């Protein structure tokens, strides 16, 4: 069940330059949430009306708590970065479909996150268990890497070469000779494109999390479509709604 809930910020900290980690206490949403789903956060300023979609980084279902890790990209995320423990924040969720954890059970899974696509892989790793390969790509400064190291077999790539393999996640895959039966990934479009190509080449299914500008977040407005290879179920054209049919798709479903 989706709901718009007025929640309380439990804690917030800056974990890297411009990157914030926030725990939010919810009544309903955390209980129902799954790895790879997202929530939408609302600004308190009436000039910014659309909610900001942010992926779930961790879900504490028993405690009713959610963690998000986000980058300050504009005025909305800037506003969120000033929230303090005890402040209220309106959120809509849980949204989207999440990663198909069942597709990973009993298989060698590789989780790949690039940039601000890293955070959602944390809950995914936890839900899959510790047998996973995790491959995180950063520009320079690392974040969440210690938590990932505890959650699986962590490999790192940095664009400036300051840690791990110099380059992107695909460079790490090649240099570190990583192999898997299935890939779950989140990151910028060029990274997803490379992963899709790699998956086709190796014949392994890749589940990728997509991004697009959103308005409703629930599938009603048709803002957030991506081109799908097959006719979609909603409009019978070739457009899947990222907010509702995704954000996680099998890479072969999508034109990238």
């Amino acid at each position: 069940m989706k709901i718009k809930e007025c929640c309380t910020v439990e804690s917030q900290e800056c974990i890297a330059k411009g990157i914030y980690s926030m725990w939010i206490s919810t009544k309903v949403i955390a209980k129902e949430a799954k790895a790879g789903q997202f929530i939408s956060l609302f600004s308190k300023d009436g000039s910014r009306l659309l909610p900001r979609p942010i992926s779930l980084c961790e879900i504490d279902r028993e405690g009713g708590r959610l963690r998000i890790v986000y980058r300050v990209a504009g005025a909305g995320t800037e506003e969120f970065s000033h929230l303090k423990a005890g402040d209220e924040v309106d959120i809509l969720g849980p949204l989207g479909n999440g990663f198909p954890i069942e597709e990973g059970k009993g298989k060698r899974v590789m989780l790949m996150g690039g940039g601000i696509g890293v955070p959602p892989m944390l809950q995914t790793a936890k839900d899959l268990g510790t047998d996973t390969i995790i491959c995180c790509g950063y520009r320079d400064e690392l974040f969440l890497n210690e938590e990932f190291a505890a959650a699986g077999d962590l490999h790192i790539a940095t664009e400036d070469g300051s840690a791990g393999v110099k380059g992107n996640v695909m460079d790490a895959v090649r240099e570190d000779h990583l192999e898997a039966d299935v890939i779950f990934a989140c990151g910028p479009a060029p990274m997803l494109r490379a992963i899709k190509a790699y998956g086709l080449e190796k014949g392994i299914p890749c589940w990728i999390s997509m991004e697009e500008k959103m308005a409703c977040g629930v599938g009603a407005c048709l803002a957030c479509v991506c081109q799908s290879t097959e006719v979609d179920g909603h409009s019978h054209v070739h457009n899947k709604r990222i907010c509702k049919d995704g954000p996680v798709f099998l890479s072969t479903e999508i034109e990238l």
Partner: protein
Amino acid sequence: MKTSVNLAGVELKNPVMTASGTFGSGAEYSEFVDLKELGAVVTKGVANVPWPGNPTPRIAEVYGGMLNAIGLQNPGIDVFCERDIPFLKQFDTKIVVNVCGRTTEDYCEVVERLTSEPVDLLEINISCPNVKEGGIAFGQDPKAVEAITREVKKYAKQPIIMKLSPNVTDITEMARAAEAGGADVLSLINTLTGMKIDIERQKFAIANKTGGMSGPAVKPIAVRMVYQVAQAVKVPIIGMGGIASAEDALEFILAGATAVSIGTANFFNPYATVETVRGIEEYMRRHKVDDINSLIGAVR
């Protein structure tokens, strides 16, 4: 306390409707609100055949509102009749089908196809600013407005709502033309053509360059147009443009709207429709209004 209003013989239990394109065919928001509490559900524009819509990005946030250039993506009338009408029939609310087309024939084909369907009203969108053919092209010239209204009326069994564009010099001219063509109801406003430029990337914020502006920012323009049209025609008016609360809805009703539609507000408050229904009742109690119809056009 009477909250029901009448649109060309169709009795709505209350004046609160949804705005086309912001509420799908009701399924998504039925997770948040009970559709039977609404006066009517107005569906996303549907054409004779499926339309893929525009490339992304399709929307951009603007101060107090948004731009959209969805481009009328829709599954076409066949899927719509098979899937969406039966879904909506489960709820005790009126069904208004919004119709789009590239040519007059397209519109008429959809309208004719709907004669045998259990829908209450048809809303003819001649004011979408986001498609190259059809849409707004029909809605900015009084002769074209009158002609398409007349043509559509020939095929229609249900009463016809003509949806007007605010991107015109004189909205009353378009309203009178639609009335002359036989429109049973008018709805306004559709979106205002706007543009946003991303100065960092030096690119248009939406792929289509321009988009239709909606949300609270456009409300004063919409209220003004509803007021002007109410002085100019006799047919009932559905007012919309920036309505996010009962207070907003009442502004339109006092200006002359018989019913109101809530659009963009659903995106930032999925409960906006039912909250508006309740807020109107609360206002009526507080102001000792027995019949909502006495508020329609009460400010002159």
